[in-house]
């Protein structure tokens, strides 16, 4: 059997196992809270891996390794920061969210906004921003997977897209959160094994750790240090953006904080998540640097990872690693689809009047929404715009700008008001978009930012300023809301 055949067999077996897992969990009778959240049913390993696997999308594996191959250690601080993202989100948001979820019926982050801001308006806007940002995000994942199949299996892009897209959408629809989290754990384990093999193999092939860096430095003199190829502000703002601002920028991952019922589960999940992310990013850096030495003439940087796998790995092992990368893609798609379905049911459909909808109907509506959004993303991925990866970054910017401070201040600052949250959310999104457009006007390129400062840094900071000012200018929140969200502090003071 040739290499493409072996890749195919391994990947087919892998997908069959994932589908089987979805069917297995579907056999259990459950409520819609179980379907969307699986609250109290998952251990720290499943939650921690699920957070990281959702945070690290397949396109970011391909894109980040490709980008790091080009920019070298100029881009590495963003990786360190991304590894720290679970630390920021678990400590600053996770524990508070878990406590709130035990008092208020919360299935989505929008439920938290609804309860905290005593109005449906901020939550509805948040739901619409998320749904808008999700479709291109999913389309980009599908495109990354389609390209991987194209390179390694030699099958046409559209066939790959149809196969992969159908499988991942169906198994999300069938399985719900419990299946998603368990498959995330399996995929995370495969990623660890795959990268643990690929990274040292690539470094050795490039001449060893020291020699690899000497050669990389000769080929890319500006990229062997922290600053050089890219301006200082680009490096610093990417470091700030990809860690702290994932609090708002990755709502599908943050939803994982609504799952655990105990503090110890949450803390253990954080350790799993950070250890996993750090290991993967260190390996990713080594793989990227090695690919810069081994594949210096590769035209499409995004294909560095699959090309390196095809070059260095025996097909059986390469197939497992590709399954890991595809697993990351699946993790992001399934988590985002599941959140999209729950947003439609819980925050857009039910508030329109059908509040007595039974669980079975709600799950059916959620599945319908998941299929619709997944289908739209597949349509977009058939002929994606050239700037699809810009759109992914734009998706992150929209959500980081809109949600980071309304969420953070809502959980920690009793004085945050409905008006402040709404103005902060919409003002932050507008500022992020305007910063992109300003870069385009000045440089004629949406990937060039003024002064090198990332829009995902500007948007949240504008959101913070607006939210604080407007909150202080408007009447404080009702006592019952403060009691609900800050009862512990009130009791402690009393």
């Amino acid at each position, binding site marked *: 059997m040739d290499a493409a055949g072996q890749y195919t067999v391994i990947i087919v077996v892998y997908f069959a196992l994932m589908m089987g897992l979805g069917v297995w969990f579907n056999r259990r009778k459950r409520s819609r809270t179980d379907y969307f959240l699986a609250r109290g049913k998952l251990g720290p390993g499943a939650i921690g891996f699920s957070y990281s696997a959702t945070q690290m999308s397949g396109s970011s594996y391909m894109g980040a390794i490709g980008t790091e191959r080009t920019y070298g250690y100029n881009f*590495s601080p963003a990786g*360190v920061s991304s*590894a720290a993202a679970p630390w920021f989100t678990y*400590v600053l948001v996770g524990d508070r969210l878990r406590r709130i979820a035990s008092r208020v019926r919360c299935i989505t982050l929008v439920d938290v906004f609804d309860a905290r801001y005593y109005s449906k308006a901020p939550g509805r806007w948040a739901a619409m921003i998320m749904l808008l940002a999700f479709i291109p995000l999913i389309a980009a994942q599908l495109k990354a997977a389609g390209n991987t199949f194209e390179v390694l299996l030699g099958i046409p892009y559209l066939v790959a897209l149809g196969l992969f897209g159908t499988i991942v959408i169906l198994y999300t629809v069938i399985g719900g959160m419990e299946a998603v989290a368990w498959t995330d754990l399996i995929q995370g384990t495969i990623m660890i094994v795959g990268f643990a093999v690929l990274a040292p193999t690539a470094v050795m092939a490039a001449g060893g750790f020291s020699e690899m860096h000497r050669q990389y430095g000769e080929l890319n003199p500006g990229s062997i*240090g*922290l600053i050089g190829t890219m301006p200082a502000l680009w490096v610093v703002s990417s470091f700030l953006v990809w860690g702290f601002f994932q609090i708002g920028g990755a709502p599908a991952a943050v939803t994982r904080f609504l799952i655990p019922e105990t*503090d110890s589960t949450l803390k253990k999940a954080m350790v799993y998540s950070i250890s996993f992310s750090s290991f993967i990013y260190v390996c990713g850096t080594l793989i990227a640097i090695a690919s810069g030495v081994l594949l210096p003439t590769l035209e499409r940087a995004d294909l560095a990872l699959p090309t390196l796998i095809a070059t260095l790995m025996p097909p059986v092992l390469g197939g497992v690693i590709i399954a890991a990368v595809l697993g990351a893609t699946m993790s992001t798609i399934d988590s985002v689809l599941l959140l999209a379905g729950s947003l439609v049911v819980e925050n857009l459909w039910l508030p329109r009047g059908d509040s007595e909808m039974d669980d079975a109907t709600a799950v059916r509506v959620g599945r319908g929404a998941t299929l619709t959004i997944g289908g739209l993303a597949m349509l977009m991925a058939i002929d994606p715009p050239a700037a699809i990866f810009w759109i992914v970054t734009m998706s992150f910017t929209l959500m980081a700008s809109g949600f980071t401070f309304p969420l953070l201040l809502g959980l920690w600052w009793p004085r945050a008001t409905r008006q402040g949250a709404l103005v902060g959310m919409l003002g932050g999104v507008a500022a992020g978009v305007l910063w992109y457009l300003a870069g385009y006007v000045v440089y004629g390129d949406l990937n060039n930012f003024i002064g090198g400062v990332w829009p995902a840094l500007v948007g949240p900071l504008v959101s913070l300023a607006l939210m604080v000012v407007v909150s202080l200018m408007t009447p404080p929140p009702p006592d019952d809301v403060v009691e609900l969200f800050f009862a*512990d502090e009130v*009791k402690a003071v009393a």
Partner: protein
Amino acid sequence: MATKSNENTAPRAPRITLMLMALFLVGGSLGLLVDWPAGPANLDWGVWLMVYGGYVYVVAAALFYVKTGK
């Protein structure tokens, strides 16, 4: 039972962890701007400290929070 007792505990801002986060963000940003001298393995000390050392810092800080809650 553990859940119930946790819910009745007043949430405390983990002050030391907050300081470690501030150090990570501020110190990390400033550290990126330093012109670091050459270090081992054809890398400068900035890469060793800010990149590889950064991962160690994050894992250690997370473990500290889990162990102490501070």
